[in-house]
């Protein structure tokens, strides 16, 4: 389990997200959106940012290099 600080664009607070190393980045974004759904309507197309870099949605959390207590951001996909 990897505890991460997740920040969803449009939300008012950072949340603790418990990710599995084998979760994909897409699943990580879904976890954060589900956790924030009481305040923010889930977006269909999003980008996950880590250290200001957009992550491949299909790569795993471990492969993306996220480690415990890192910050990641989920933002609306910019067309």
């Amino acid at each position: 389990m990897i505890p991460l600080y997740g920040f969803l664009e449009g939300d008012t607070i950072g949340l603790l997200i418990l990710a599995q190393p084998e979760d994909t980045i897409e699943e990580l974004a879904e976890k954060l959106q589900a956790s924030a759904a009481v305040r923010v309507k889930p977006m269909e197309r999003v980008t996950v940012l880590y250290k200001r870099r957009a992550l491949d949605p299909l790569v795993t959390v471990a492969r993306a290099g996220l480690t415990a207590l890192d910050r990641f951001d989920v933002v609306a996909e910019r067309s």
Partner: protein
Amino acid sequence: MAPGKGAGVLKREEWLDLARDVGWEPSYVAEDELYPPEIAGRPWLPGPAWASWDEPYKTSYGEYVAKQHEKDNSLYAVRDTVGRVEDYRKLDPAWTNGLKLHAATLPLAEFAAVIGNLRAARFGRSSAWRTMATFGALDELRHTHIPLLLMHELVRWDRQFDWTHRFYHSNNWVAIAARHLIDELLLGANPIEFAVATNFVFETGFTNLQFVGLAAMARGAGDHLFEKMVTSIQSDEARHAQIGGAVLRILVQHDRAYAQALVDKWFWRSWLLFAVLTGFTMDYFTPLQARTQSFKEFMQEWVVEQFLQSLAEHGLEKPWYWETFLESLDYYHHMVYASAYTYRASVWFNFVVPGPDERAWLRQKYPRSWSELDPIWERISARWERADPGNDFAVHGTAIVSFCDLCQLVLCNGTPARNSAVVLEHQGKKRIFCSEPCRWIFEREPERYASHDEVVKRVLAGQAPANLIALVQRYFGLTYDDWGKDAYGGRYPWMRAGKEPR
């Protein structure tokens, strides 16, 4: 002292000066033994450097007691007339939550201020300062007992008022943040830092926000006891706050950079506290018809303008993060309130959803930020509209929220588009801060803060439960009877029940 025949007695001003400055130069013990630098504070200056210490509010013990007696009588008269349970039952249900918030966070903090003042009464470097700090300690003891006494009456009506005393004895997340602040500000600080931080920044900078702004709103809300309590307490604060400027004046002469750093640090820490305490109350808990100004407008008038003027008079600059602070005036308390609304079971007071009229008012008062905040309330309202009546957990968060490693408050700084939290690796351990000023405060004195874990790290270390309900009940000390709920159970006349979620 007895005047001889024909000699006039001293004028009052001369007498007060004489009666205040009653120390002598020690000759049987070295000055640095009497006032060890470790506890007297830096810069350690020889006694004569403090000889010019002066502040405008001079009083004698006799005058002090007479005045306080008069104020207490006046306060208790108001209590006996309009401060009973039956009077509180008539008030707006939203308003009383601002009272619960203040009642819990203030009284025991005031007791910590007794200790801070007594340290200054012993280790302050001017005799006049020590005398005034002694009166300050008496003031703070009064401020401890008044709310404890007045709110005790209300416990039999509403158990949430029991948190007036319980709050600082709990591991509630707000109490952890409050103790983190109070331990340093009032219990741990040496007299110089205490005077700058508490007397100058906290009391001079922010006192008027309570004294003028909150008292006016309490009057408008019909809560005359709270109005009287605030004005009675704040009139003491306004007097002993003068100690701060007097200490700062001498500090600036000898170590301007340190004086500036203390001001910068404590203005930010004080701001975060008042944003929650007063920001919630003014912009959400006060009935719309009783709101004379927005929290931001009060801040601009009574804190920003006056504080900057006061800094300039002392030859100091505005804090380095001033632009960040000005932006946070539009966002911070709104972001904390919306977040806390969706985690209301984690605190001891109730919340309300701002209705269409309140949101129109907030949009007018906060044109820069409200368009980013309004969708949150749209979403929350929509959730209530499809929830079963009174089912609070249908509109409640379930994930554990995250906290700042410095201020211990939730990570709600910045804007909804870009939260300003920042991760820092320090001595192999990752820490997160809600803002650049909080990171700066930590990095300036890491040894002071590094051993303290915020709530998430306690959860990860197994010291606190990871399940939210278990965390609320077993760690934060709340039960269903006293945890925060929607004050109206989600039943607002402007909501349309059964509407599909958006």
